[in-house]
């Protein structure tokens, strides 16, 4: 087991390095750089000298290979440097945004789990009845509805029916939990519904598969209470693929909610992404991409680990 974990951890390195190479050079292909953008606002023709000093200050005058090595060297020491646009340390820039994105992702996950598992189980138990059909249609509809549009509809509904708008300025949870939840519950519902659709379908099909297993028949044959069969024998075994879907979707939510954040005016990681690319803030964009890629790879790793942990058939292979 330890050998497996070490091997998987080591395998993360080449993948992260590949992501680093791609984002570094991709950003350099994007036309226009931060210095041009900054001086473009000030005067129609900024002195070339000014541009050059600014580039030298940011280290953009050095050969590209050297820039890359400097950056990678910093990454290895977990030093992300400072934002080229604001000059603030990148860890500072990211921290608050990350807290918001993380909270939203967690809330959406809770919504998704609360919807998906009961619905998926009921649909599987009542396969091919109207309940099953309703759940299936609901989940396909969830996959088809853009969550940013659902967000717009929520805001519209609140506005027209209750004449009330959710707060548009972010308050951290520890400052004012009510204010915080009143703002974040709507995007969490909009995103959670879509997210639950994937999980519901997975729960349903996993349950259907498990319910056909011999050990369920055995449990029934020995007269075990149906509730116990479901909770202890069926659901537990059906949860593995559901866990995978939920975890992967969670990894996506940490930087992938750009549009929903826009609709609800939330300053999360997604918005930061768009700003960073817009400003050609190389250091910030690179750090963000590395962060999101790391979360994705790490969650994948955890899922594989959980599989090995929960399923002895995999552990002892």
């Amino acid at each position, binding site marked *: 087991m330890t050998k497996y974990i070490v091997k998987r951890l080591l395998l993360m390195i080449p993948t992260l390095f590949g992501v680093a190479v791609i984002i570094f050079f991709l950003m350099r292909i994007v036309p226009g750089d931060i210095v041009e953008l900054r001086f473009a606002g000030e005067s129609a023709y900024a002195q070339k000298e000014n541009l050059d000093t600014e580039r030298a200050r940011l280290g953009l005058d050095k050969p590209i290979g050297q820039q890359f090595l400097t950056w990678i060297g910093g990454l290895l020491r977990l030093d992300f440097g400072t934002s080229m646009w604001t000059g603030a340390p990148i860890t500072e820039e990211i921290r608050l945004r990350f807290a918001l994105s993380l909270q939203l992702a967690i809330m959406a996950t809770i919504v998704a789990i609360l919807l998906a598992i009961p619905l998926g189980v009921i649909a599987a138990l009542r396969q091919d009845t109207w309940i099953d059909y309703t759940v299936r249609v609901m989940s396909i509809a969830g996959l088809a509805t*853009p969550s940013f549009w659902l967000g717009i509809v929520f805001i519209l509904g609140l506005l027209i029916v209750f004449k009330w708008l959710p707060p548009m300025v972010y308050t951290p949870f520890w400052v004012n939990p009510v204010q915080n939840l009143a703002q974040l519950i709507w995007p969490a519902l909009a995103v959670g519904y879509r997210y639950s659709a994937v999980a519901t379908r997975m729960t349903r099909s996993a349950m259907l598969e498990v319910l056909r297993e011999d050990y369920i028949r055995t449990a029934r044959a020995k007269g075990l209470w149906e509730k116990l069969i479901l909770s202890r024998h069926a659901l537990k075994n059906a949860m593995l693929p559901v866990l995978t879907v939920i975890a992967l979707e969670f990894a996506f939510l940490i930087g992938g909610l750009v549009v929903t954040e826009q609709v609800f005016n939330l300053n999360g990681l997604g918005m930061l992404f768009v700003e960073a690319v817009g400003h050609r803030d190389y250091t910030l964009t690179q750090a963000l991409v590395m962060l999101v890629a790391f979360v994705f790879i790490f969650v994948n790793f955890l899922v594989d680990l959980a599989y090995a942990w929960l399923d002895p058939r995999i552990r002892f292979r």
Partner: protein
Amino acid sequence: MAIGRPVDVAAEIPEATRRRRWLAAVGEFCRQRPLGAIGAIVVVVNIVVGVSANVIAPYDPLATDYGAMLARPSAAHWLGTDAFGRDVLSRIIYGSRTAMLVGFACALLGATIGAVIGVASAYFAGKVDLLVQRVMDIFLAFPLIILALAVVSILGTGIVNVIVAIAIPMIPRAALVSRSSALAIREMPYVDAARAAGFRHRRIILRHMLPNVMAPYLIMLTAYLGQAILAEASLTFLGLGVSEPTPAWGLMLRGAAVQFAESAPWMAVFPGLAISLAVFAFNLFGDSLRDALDPRLRAQ
């Protein structure tokens, strides 16, 4: 008796029989999977509407009418008008053209390139396979929106660039799926036979292996169609996709639609419904197609 040329079985079936078989298969599908059939019908309607938008649409989607700005849905404007007095229904009808174009182009590009890479990776095995796998891992870990942002920043906005931006992230996912199906096919005797016959790698991959991953390919294709339409709407909504004046659903939800949401909710509601309905239909059809094509599910 000398061994003759291989017989092309399909060629010996008369055209009429072949057509009848097709119809029978379609009939079977509709009977067994009514939900899928409904999805297919909506998809076809969507395509027809998109193709013949200039005939069906009651108004020019770009024509502004300052006398009827933000008009409620009425007999003249079934779904109302937007902040420039443009007919919402006509814009949705024309938007269908954009959505279908982007959807089909992205799904075809993404699924096909992905399938070729996946099958080739499985066929060559060994070091090549390992390398391809690693590269695909990197792209999978890469945030989709950044890829799209970068592509659009490099190439500029516009429909072709949006298609590229959406299709690229689909490739590694398609490659993964096709590779796992192709691994089993590689061990088939006919692939060995083809290799023994001295065919080139390209021919074996394209003519012998690729057609046999058709089932997962079609499933991916239908799933990607919906996803591409959603992605296009999201990118466009962010201002990174299709740009004015091209009528697109995501574009209709942008700016004024949110600004005037309280007084003219139809501007924000109907385009979103159009997106949902189109993607819903593709998913419904795709799901049923998967059930029909996947032998493991068929047995259940």
